[in-house]
């Protein structure tokens, strides 16, 4: 056994990040480590690489107990991690980066450039990376930089390598290169822990899969004996649905009750980089459509591309029957499309400003005359929405940061609503708010649909999406892979679709048929 943990325990304050985690990695093996956010994957990586110390349990390397007090010590012993963020020097050459700190020398002082470039070339060729080692690292794509990071740690003597979400930054071609690198590592007898949210990749690459949930191992099996359905169920914590996997997918093509209502949002063949792939979907007036998908399935990217915050590479978006010709947020707002970002702190609130300013941020021209903002119209608007959404604030001039998370979120929802949209898109509207506020947000969302708006919503909790929406559109790796009416169903059915993955891939976007 190359690397092994026995009964690892780690707590951060009151949070038990890892509970009795036993995990092992063999030489020449690719071992997938999976789990949703907060499952404990990063904590485990931090313990393995000496960034944190375990509170209990042990780590064994080659069968001997080890204790790393720093990533450097772990690296010296042969355990290294390659993270999403590259920690190389972008302004230096590929060869410089590969040999940073251990350059081949001449007479002990001068760097032997020629030899360094030659050795770098050999190293790259070994992993079938056709890159000129003299190129500046920055000129390569992020994905290639990541592959060079891998080459570097292995050439430094790492025998157990942890790839933390290696493909979240890779393009399609780069993913193929990564597969080549991984195959070579396997042949070299290097053990690989592969952390990724992309199921198809894990199934293609990994020999074994271990699933963490809430800090504990909930499944650990050879890939061949762990079907997708059970894997997803284990990740989300609903093992019992595994058996009924294809049951729900069969129901994917039924239409909802209000097919006669006008279309509020129509998306056709929308694409953005590799993250949103030919997405088509429709939302009718009065309908709440849930966007379901695992983490990394492209939910947020889809929202942002529809909204025009990311420039689509192709496809069209129409709101209330009118096409948005030049996709950008200001144009979307003008056409009646509103959007609530999942990232309240950095993409939502203006922390330095008041409740009133935050609430009216998207409608300033409408409450102005000749460029001068009308205090009266602003305060009227604020009063109306504070009342109707039940925002608890000391007053309109109170700083937004003095409000609780739930109330801040209501202010942001109000910001979206006061643009008087025909269609609202809510990306995880209940993230980070307490249970009571959650229920109120649900009430608001249902109210919007009842007033005839189209709503497209998602959540990091599958149960919530199912509970809230009339109909689901299932997203997997940037593609629409299925649809489902949610009336009278629970999340188990949806899980089956998510788990079905490839099985339901060819189902057309629901609603597009009508």
């Amino acid at each position: 056994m190359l690397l092994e943990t026995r009964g690892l325990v780690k707590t951060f304050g009151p949070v038990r990040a890892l509970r009795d985690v036993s995990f092992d990695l063999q030489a020449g093996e690719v071992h997938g480590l999976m789990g949703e956010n907060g499952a404990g994957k990063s904590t485990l990586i931090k313990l393995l690489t000496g960034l944190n110390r375990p509170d209990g349990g042990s780590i064994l390397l080659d069968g001997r107990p080890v204790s790393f007090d720093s990533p450097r010590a772990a690296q010296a012993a042969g355990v290294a991690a390659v993270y999403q963020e590259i920690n190389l020097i972008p302004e230096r050459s590929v060869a410089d980066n590969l040999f940073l700190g251990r350059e081949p020398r001449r007479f002990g002082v001068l760097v032997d450039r020629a030899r360094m470039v030659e050795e770098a070339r050999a190293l790259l060729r070994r992993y079938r990376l056709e890159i000129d080692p003299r190129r500046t690292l920055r000129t390569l794509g992020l994905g290639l930089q990541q592959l060079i990071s891998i080459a570097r740690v292995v050439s430094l003597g790492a025998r157990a390598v942890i790839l933390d979400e290696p493909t979240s930054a890779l393009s399609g071609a780069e993913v193929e290169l990564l597969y080549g690198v991984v195959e070579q590592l396997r042949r070299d007898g290097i053990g690989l822990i592969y952390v990724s949210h992309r199921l198809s990749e894990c199934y293609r690459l990994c020999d074994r899969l271990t699933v963490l949930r809430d800090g504990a191992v909930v499944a650990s099996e050879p890939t061949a004996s762990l079907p997708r359905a059970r894997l997803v169920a284990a990740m989300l914590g609903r093992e019992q649905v595994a058996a009924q996997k294809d049951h729900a997918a069969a129901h994917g093509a039924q239409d909802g009750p209000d097919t006669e209502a006008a279309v509020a949002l129509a998306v056709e063949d929308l694409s953005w980089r590799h993250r949103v792939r030919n997405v088509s979907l429709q939302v009718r007036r009065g309908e709440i459509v849930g966007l379901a998908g695992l983490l990394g399935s492209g939910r947020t990217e889809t929202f942002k591309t529809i909204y025009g915050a990311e420039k689509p590479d192709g496809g069209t978006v129409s709101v209330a029957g009118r096409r948005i010709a030049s996709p950008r947020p200001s144009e979307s707002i003008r056409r009646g499309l509103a959007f609530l970002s999942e990232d309240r702190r950095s993409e939502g609130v203006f922390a330095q400003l008041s409740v009133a300013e935050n609430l009216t941020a998207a409608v300033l021209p409408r409450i102005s005359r000749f460029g001068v903002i009308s205090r009266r119209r602003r305060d009227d608007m604020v009063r109306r929405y504070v009342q109707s959404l039940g925002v608890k604030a000391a007053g309109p001039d109170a700083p937004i940061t003095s409000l609780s998370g739930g109330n801040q979120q209501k202010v942001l929802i109000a910001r979206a609503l006061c643009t008087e949209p025909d269609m609202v898109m809510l990306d995880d509207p209940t993230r980070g708010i307490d249970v009571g506020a959650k229920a109120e947000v649900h009430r608001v969302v249902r109210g919007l649909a009842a007033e005839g708006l189209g709503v497209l919503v998602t959540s990091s909790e599958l149960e919530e999406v199912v509970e809230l929406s009339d109909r689901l559109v299932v997203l997997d790796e940037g593609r629409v892979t299925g649809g489902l009416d949610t009336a009278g169903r629970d999340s188990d059915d949806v899980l089956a679709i998510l788990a079905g993955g490839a099985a339901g891939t060819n189902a057309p976007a629901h609603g597009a048929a009508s």
Partner: protein
Amino acid sequence: MTAAVPGGRIAERGAPQPAGGRRLSIGRLSIDWRAQSVYVAFVALVAFDLLVTPGFRNPTVIRSLLFEAAPLILIALGQSLAIGTRGIDLSVGSVMALSSAMIGLTVDAGQGLAIGAGIAVGLACGVLNGLLVALLRIAPLISSLALLVAARGLAQALLGGARVDLPFGGPIPALGQMAPLGIPVVAIVSLLLAAAFAFVVRRTLPGRYALFVGASRTAATLAGHPVRLTLAFVYGLSGLLAGLAGVFATARLGAADANYIGVQFELDAIAAAVIGGTPLSGGRISTLGTVFGVLLLVVLDASFIMNNVNANYAQILKAAFIVGALYLRRGAA
């Protein structure tokens, strides 16, 4: 703000109240001393000078201080708006010099024209800076640094390194001398513009957009704000004000001089804005605080001179004073 100090009036109203600052509550009056430190420091310094500094009570002193302050107020206003967008404008001192050079070149064709030329070249510089920041996404620190070097160089080239003396009569010398009731006209113009500026920042779309962009550029984009247009406006306005400041400084000097006008003024403008309550982190701005920041620095300079402090030591003391003022402000809104 229910503060009894003048800070509550023109100071940015939309800014949240400081949370947990050191407060003194008297009935319904609640004052955060740290947020008001610029006013406190100004009053303390003036009191000190009245008691100690020889000749400070002479009414001509206030007149000459206001002449000094007028151009600095203008560029500090532009600066505070740039800082409010989480940017900076290092070019203002050099743009003043370029404005001065334009006056020197065109003054023979008529003084009104020369004033217009000075202001116009300032606006042009500001718009160029704004386009670099907004369209090419160059960091404001870099683009305005480039302009700092280029505008000064161009100004010196235009005048061939020489000083061009202005005629004794006409509107420009009048600007440099007229002071009804001991208050210089340029100071009155600067204060009126400061009031207009406060209105623009508090109540108009471009002013509000500037602060939204400074508070969170991503959130502003998602809220549909015209982010790039706003940045172009902000730097254009800063350039325009610097152009006018160049006119004032040239009028006061009585000559166009590319080597003298506006040297290191950008540093005083930044210091005044920040001391006055416009944090470098953006999203917030205090117009009145900026004006008082300028007055504080001008009085400070005068205090050193009038007490015969060696100019080198005066620089060090001034730096220490600025650091002290910022220290008092830490954590305040």
